[in-house]
């Protein structure tokens, strides 16, 4: 094989591996979330299918496959079918630029644990997250139902309000690293976790990211697009069977991306909190550190869902524009001043 073909093969294998890992994590997450939420609410959750109920996601998958696909009479056929596909494609596109671990040696080659180390990695994430809203808008509009339409409208308003804060919360970390490349931002946090992680150096930026990211993936307390008590199930009310599963999957993959990006930009990604712990018996365990940080982020999202009630819609909008955006701006100005006068 020529070098180009080899590179192409490696890229394809990496895409397949990461894609399937995320699919597996998705089904695991549905189980973990139901189970943890149940414990938080003094229930048991699904515990009958397999040991500890671990086969519940498999049973759910089989059930969804055999459900009837229903399309409402007045629905827009093309867009109704295209919406879940678009949602899942944009969700999976963003996992490509996250570095999951240090470069590994396999078959005498250096292989970075990242599908694409883009020069504009952070901006790419931003672009893809801004496209993610279309899947939801399309789903809400195409079903031709007023509840889904309201879900879609709310979601688009919420997402483009919080997207701005989300993007601005990254700017401080980008300025400190001097690069848009995510792997550069990770390595800029090398050293002891206090004070090198951006969680400490960029505390206001992290707070803005936490809130904006929760809103961006429509999780409680910002799950207004699918507020059950007012909108039935929001934009996916009319979806059934595997199309419903795809929309659900897109939401979970987005949540995992947000956790992975947070771990990379604010918690040193695959770097150990203490440099001495980076290698164990001569092996670099960066991947494990990354998974631990990402898992902590995902646990936080579930914990949050079990703890806080939903925001009211007007509170949500004014909070985004009047608190988060100014806070992110101040953080950028502060970081710029620090770089210009202190560093």
């Amino acid at each position: 094989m020529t070098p180009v073909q080899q590179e192409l093969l490696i890229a394809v294998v990496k895409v397949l591996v990461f894609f399937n890992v995320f699919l597996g994590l998705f089904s695991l997450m549905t189980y973990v979330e139901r189970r943890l939420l149940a414990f938080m609410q003094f229930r048991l959750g699904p515990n009958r299918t397999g040991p500890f109920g671990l086969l519940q996601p498999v049973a759910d998958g089989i059930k969804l496959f055999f459900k009837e696909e229903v399309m409402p009479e007045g629905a827009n056929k093309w867009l109704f079918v295209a919406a879940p596909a678009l949602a899942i494609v944009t969700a999976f596109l963003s996992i490509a630029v996250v570095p999951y671990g240090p470069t590994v040696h396999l078959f005498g080659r250096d292989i970075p644990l990242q599908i694409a180390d883009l020069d504009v990695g952070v901006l790419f994430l931003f672009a893809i997250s801004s496209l993610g809203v279309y899947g939801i808008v399309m789903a809400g509009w195409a079903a031709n139902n007023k509840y889904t339409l309201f879900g879609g409208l709310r979601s688009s308003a919420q997402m483009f309000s919080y997207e701005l804060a989300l993007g601005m919360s990254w700017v401080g970390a980008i300025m400190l690293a001097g690069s848009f490349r995510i792997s550069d931002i990770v390595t800029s946090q090398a050293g002891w976790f206090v004070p090198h992680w951006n969680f400490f150096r960029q505390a206001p930026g992290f707070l803005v990211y936490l809130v904006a990211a929760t809103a961006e993936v429509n999780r409680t307390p910002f799950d207004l697009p699918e507020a059950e008590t007012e909108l039935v199930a929001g934009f996916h009310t009319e979806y059934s069977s595997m199309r419903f599963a795809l929309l659900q999957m897109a939401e979970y993959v987005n949540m995992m991306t947000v956790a992975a990006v947070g771990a990379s930009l604010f918690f040193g990604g695959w770097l150990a909190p203490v440099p001495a712990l980076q290698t164990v018996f001569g092996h670099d365990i960066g991947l494990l550190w990354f998974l631990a940080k990402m898992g902590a982020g995902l646990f936080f999202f579930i914990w949050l869902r079990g703890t806080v009630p939903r925001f009211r819609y007007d509170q949500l909008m004014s909070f985004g524009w009047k608190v988060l955006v100014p806070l992110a701006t101040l953080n950028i100005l502060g970081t710029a001043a620090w770089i210009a006068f202190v560093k």
Partner: protein
Amino acid sequence: MTLDAILFYVFAAVAVGSALVVVGQRHPTYSAFALIVTLCSLSAVFGLLGSPFIAVLQVVVYAGAIMVLFLFVLMLLSVQREERPARRAWGVKATAIGLGAVLVAQVGSVLASAARGTTAPGFNASTGQVARLLFSPAYLYVFEATSILILAALVGAVALAKRES
């Protein structure tokens, strides 16, 4: 043909095709979605031409932000399929023909210069280079003037919205 060239032609074809859908489609919502496809394939073309920064900005600004607002308005107004007018005004036809002629002339001139073998001077369009150029004395004034224009529009929009309530 190299892989890059094949991808270039694929995305170029998608861009032109979806642009035709934008114009030909009678339903505004379909047009808006087709325009998003056009912008995304243009972004892919920019990326293939070696300027990832411009490619990403194309998606962030146009496909991501502006088109969401367009769609938002279209959905709030719950627009229906537009009916084709029975006859178009004479002036509209003349303008369309004139603009079509300009387009043909432009495409022709580009093809002619390509046939002569002249190429545009190379430019390293990495993020840093674009930023240095943008903030260099050559473009700084224009850049700042545009920023002030956008700020003025922003303040104007807020003032108009306030007066309503």
